[in-house]
Structure formats: structure tokens, C-alpha cells
């Protein structure tokens, strides 16, 4: 576990949080601009001072205002990827990557540089100067440069925000690959819902310098007390496993504890993990199992919570096997069907999309 507690007061902006974060996986810090996501990363890196702080990572104390402990930024064993790649313009790609390596303590274990360079696809760029690279290439080098330090934690501050859509799509697969391979915790700042859905294991929702919610991706997404669940983009994410291919109809089947889903044919091996996104607006509720329907995915579910939203809408949180599911229906439908918490119903899933693979 890593524990970070910070209190920062800039007059117009305050940051006050106390978080215990998991030691593995990607934790996405999600929120509007000005919610304190970047400030939190800068505090963790020691680039920004805090009035009160306690920061402990891997059982090592980095900062504690009461004990007067403050590890200077260059002594913190972390990797930092900024919004801009910030490759030093006077150094080649290889020299940029070596910059940090040359300054590492002798005791730090070496990262496998060749593997890293291959993983990020930058082998052919090594002898070039940064201004000869595209934005996406620069950012991949910046990620390699940070990971080459074999850090104990990786901090990423909107690494895709400065890139256009095409470059984003080009770099996301590399990030997803890293997400599955890295054995260190990653703190990833973004205000893009899509990036969060594709990369997060855990999420921290931030609002005006405070933590609004923290938990696993699926868990936080399905909480209907949060504003996120009432937005038009509200969705659930299911963690499933690819279980069958149906060549005849060009479909694939993914399974989870308690059921399975049919999806358009996936180009992946059986047994691989598939992250499925289901918009709340694509889910409808029936009291009985529809006998004749064009919708393939009909699943039994239990209603767990119901909450009214604005504009005649109602948000319903259901459980399907071990997965949580949000549905947006009209308040009138809720009334007509007499939906109440604890009721057994059927859900029809009109559409879903795959977030990886």
C-alpha cells in the first residue's frame, strides 16, 4: 500500500486528501481541470510543497511534515511523464533515455532497456533529435525515459492530452500493454472518460481538491450516488474472459462469473481478458424473459438500487452474476413496471463495446 496525505492551500485553491492506494495496477485520477489531480502528482514528486504532508511508498517514508522529512525530488525513486514529452532538445533520443540512468544510485536494479525500447517501439528513433519526432513518438520516448529508471511508482500527468485523436489511438495500445505488464503502481491523471475506462484498475474521482470517490473501476462506475452515474455517458465496465468464437455468425462469446455475453467477433485468443463497456442508456429492463427479441444479450439480474435523476430519468443499479450494471430508464417505465430494490428482472443489453484487444 502507499499512503498519501496532503494539505495544500494556495488561497484560491485547496487540496486536502488522505488516500491509501494499491501497490499494483493503474489508478486513474479523474476530474475536471482545477480539481487538483496534477497538484497531487506534483506533491508526490516533491515538485510542489505542501503545508501538511505524509507520504509513504513501499514502506519508505518520502515526506512527513510533522517529522520534518522531505526527500528532495531527485532522490525520489519515481518516474514522471508530463503532459508535454519534455524531451531535452539538445540530446538525442538515446541520450535522453540515458540522462536519468546515468544518475541512478548504484544500488538501483537496472531496467531491461532493450525490452522497454521494444515495448514502446522506439528502436528506430534512438539516434534522432526530439524535434524530428512526431508528438506520439516523443511521448513514447518520454515514457521509456521514465521507466528506464526502474522506478517504484510511475506518475503520468495527462500524457495523451497534447496529442490529436490519431496519435492518441496510436499510443493507447502501448499504454494498455504496459498496464498489464508493469509491476509497479501507476498514477494516471486524465479528464478523458475513455482513457479512464481503457486503462484504469482503480479510480480516484477528484472534485475541487478533494476525493469524491475511490475504488475499483467497476465499483465506482456503478455507484449511483455519484454524479457520474447520472450523466449521459454513464456506463458500466465488465471484466470478462473470451470463451468462444462463433465463426458462422461472426460473433464471440465472453464469460463472467454468472453468465456470458455475445459480442461482434474479437480478434484475440480464447482465455484472454476482455474489458467490456456497456452504456447505461443501452440497457433496458423487462419483468419476464422476452421470448422473441432481436437483442442477443438478455440476462437475469437483481435490482440493487434505484435513484431518480433530472428530466424524468431514473438510474437503476443491478447485479448480473458478479458484475454491476447501470441502466438509464424513464421514471414512467419504473412506475409502470413497479420496479423496487431487491426485485429479480431481466436486462436487455442493446449494445456494448470492447475496451481492449
Amino acid at each position, binding site marked *: 500500500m502507499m499512503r498519501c496525505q496532503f494539505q495544500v492551500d494556495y488561497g484560491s485553491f485547496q487540496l486536502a486528501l488522505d488516500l491509501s492506494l494499491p501497490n499494483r495496477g493503474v489508478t486513474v485520477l479523474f476530474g475536471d481541470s482545477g480539481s487538483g489531480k496534477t497538484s497531487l502528482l506534483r506533491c508526490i*514528486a*516533491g*515538485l510542489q510543497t505542501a503545508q501538511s504532508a505524509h507520504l509513504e511508498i513501499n514502506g519508505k517514508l518520502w515526506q512527513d511534515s510533522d517529522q520534518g522529512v522531505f526527500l*528532495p*525530488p*531527485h*532522490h*525520489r525513486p*519515481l*518516474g*514522471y511523464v*508530463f503532459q*508535454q514529452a*519534455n524531451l*531535452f*532538445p*539538445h540530446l538525442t533520443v538515446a541520450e535522453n533515455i540515458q*540522462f*536519468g540512468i546515468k*544518475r*541512478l544510485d548504484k544500488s538501483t536494479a537496472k531496467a531491461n532497456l532493450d525490452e522497454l525500447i521494444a515495448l514502446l517501439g522506439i528502436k528506430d528513433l534512438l539516434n534522432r533529435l*526530439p*524535434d524530428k519526432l512526431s508528438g506520439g513518438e516523443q511521448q513514447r520516448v518520454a515514457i521509456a*525515459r*521514465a521507466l528506464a*529508471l526502474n522506478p517504484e511508482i510511475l506518475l503520468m500527468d495527462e500524457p495523451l492530452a497534447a496529442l490529436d485523436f490519431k496519435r492518441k489511438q496510436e499510443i493507447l495500445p502501448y499504454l494498455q500493454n504496459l498496464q498489464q505488464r508493469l509491476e509497479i503502481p501507476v498514477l494516471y491523471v486524465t479528464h478523458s472518460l475513455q482513457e479512464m475506462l481503457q486503462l484504469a484498475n482503480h479510480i480516484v474521482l477528484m472534485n475541487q481538491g478533494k476525493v469524491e470517490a475511490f475504488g475499483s473501476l467497476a465499483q465506482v462506475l456503478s455507484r449511483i450516488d455519484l454524479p457520474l452515474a447520472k450523466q449521459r455517458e454513464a456506463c458500466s465496465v465488465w471484466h470478462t474472459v473470451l470463451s468462444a468464437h462463433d465463426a458462422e455468425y461472426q460473433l464471440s462469446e465472453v464469460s463472467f462469473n454468472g453468465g456470458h455475453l455475445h459480442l461482434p467477433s474479437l480478434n484475440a485468443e480464447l482465455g484472454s481478458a476482455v474489458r467490456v463497456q456497456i452504456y447505461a442508456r443501452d440497457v433496458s429492463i423487462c419483468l419476464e424473459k422476452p421470448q422473441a427479441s432481436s437483442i442477443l444479450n438478455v440476462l437475469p439480474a437483481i435490482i440493487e438500487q434505484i435513484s431518480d435523476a433530472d428530466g424524468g430519468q431514473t438510474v437503476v443499479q443491478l447485479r448480473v452474476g458478479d458484475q454491476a450494471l447501470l441502466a438509464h430508464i424513464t421514471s414512467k417505465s419504473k412506475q409502470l413496471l413497479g420496479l423496487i430494490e431487491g426485485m429479480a428482472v431481466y436486462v436487455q443489453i442493446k449494445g456494448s463495446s470492447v475496451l481492449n484487444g
Partner: protein
Amino acid sequence: MLSASDLDTLLLTLKLASLATLIMLLIGTPLAWWLSRTQSAWKGVINAIVALPLVLPPTVLGFYLLLALGPHGAIGQLTRWLGIGGLPFTFAGLVLASVLYSLPFVVQPLQTAFAAIDQRWLDTAATLRASRLDSFFSVILPLAKHGFLSASVLGFAHTVGEFGVVLMVGGNIPDQTRVVSVQIYNHVEALEYGQAHGLAAVLLVFSFSVLLVLYSVNHKRWDGLR
């Protein structure tokens, strides 16, 4: 075309300007860095003091320096106490005067170059395990190299071209304080126009080349700097 004594003055000028430029870079670099980053209330005062030689007549600066360096001046008493002796009318005095007189030409380009360097480069270097001092040498200096070029060239050229301060503090002593600008004055006073022409042409060509180099290099700046 140039006489032996003319060549001596050229060599002396070169020596003076090189030494003064080196000292100005050593003093000017930390000073310019501090000025480019500080929010101290002293910034304005220090800036004004450094820039003073830009507007002050050289004779005024020379006059005060002469007093300060003389037997009753603060610096003069210090140098005597240290056993160095008096500085007026010596090469060392001339170097000191040149440093003070040309310092703004070194500090200002450096300050501009440093101010253009975004904090993100320092943050990046810090997250790549570089201490502040290390970052200064490995990141700031290379990023500010055009500033250093401008500062060196301007500081050097301006020292070569000074006249008033030299006359006040250094006088006209052959092989010690007689620099090119003073020698040209001597030639003209003695109506040796031919010799004055030779030295003047050397300075003209030198100054033009320096400026040409400076402007061509600055034209080809990196985009990565900002």
C-alpha cells in the same frame, strides 16, 4: 602597415577583453540566473545597478572608479592592505574597470536566455534524478547556449571598444594600459592619419564580423527552446 607598437596595443586589447569576458561570465552567470528567477524586492535595484554603465558617460564611471581605486578609496585601501598595491594605471585596474563597464552586455543576454527557459525543464530534470546544480550544467547551460554566445561576444566586443573609462583609470602607458582605442586617439592627435586608418579599419572589420556572426546564429534558433 601596422607598426610594432600598434601590434602590441592590439595584443594587449585582446588580452584585456578575453580576461574581462571570462570574469564577466563567471560573475554574470549566477547573477543573471538569480535575476531571471527571483521575486525578491531587490531585483529592481540590482538590475538598475548592473545596467547603470549603459547610460552613464564612461568618464563618470571612470572618475568614481579612479577615486575608489586610489589611495584614499575603499578598494584602494583594500588592495594596499592585501599587498597588491594601487590599481590605477595598471592592467589589473583596467580589467576591473572593464568588467564593471561591460557587465550589462553579459548579464542582459544571459538573463533573457534564462528567463525563456520554462520551469518544466527543471521539473523534468529533477524527476530524472538530477540535483539543481546538476540540472543547471546539464540542461540550463545547453538550452541557454545562444545566450552565452551573445553574452561573450557582446562583452568582448564592448571591452575592445571602450575608451573613456580606459583613459580615466588606465591612462596611456605602453604595454600596460595602452589599448587600441587609445592608440587610435594618439595617432590622430599626432596627425598620423595613415596609422590611425590601419587600426580603425581593424576595429571596424572586427566589430562588423562579430555582429554578423551574432545575428546569423540568432536567426537559426531552435524551436525547442520555448
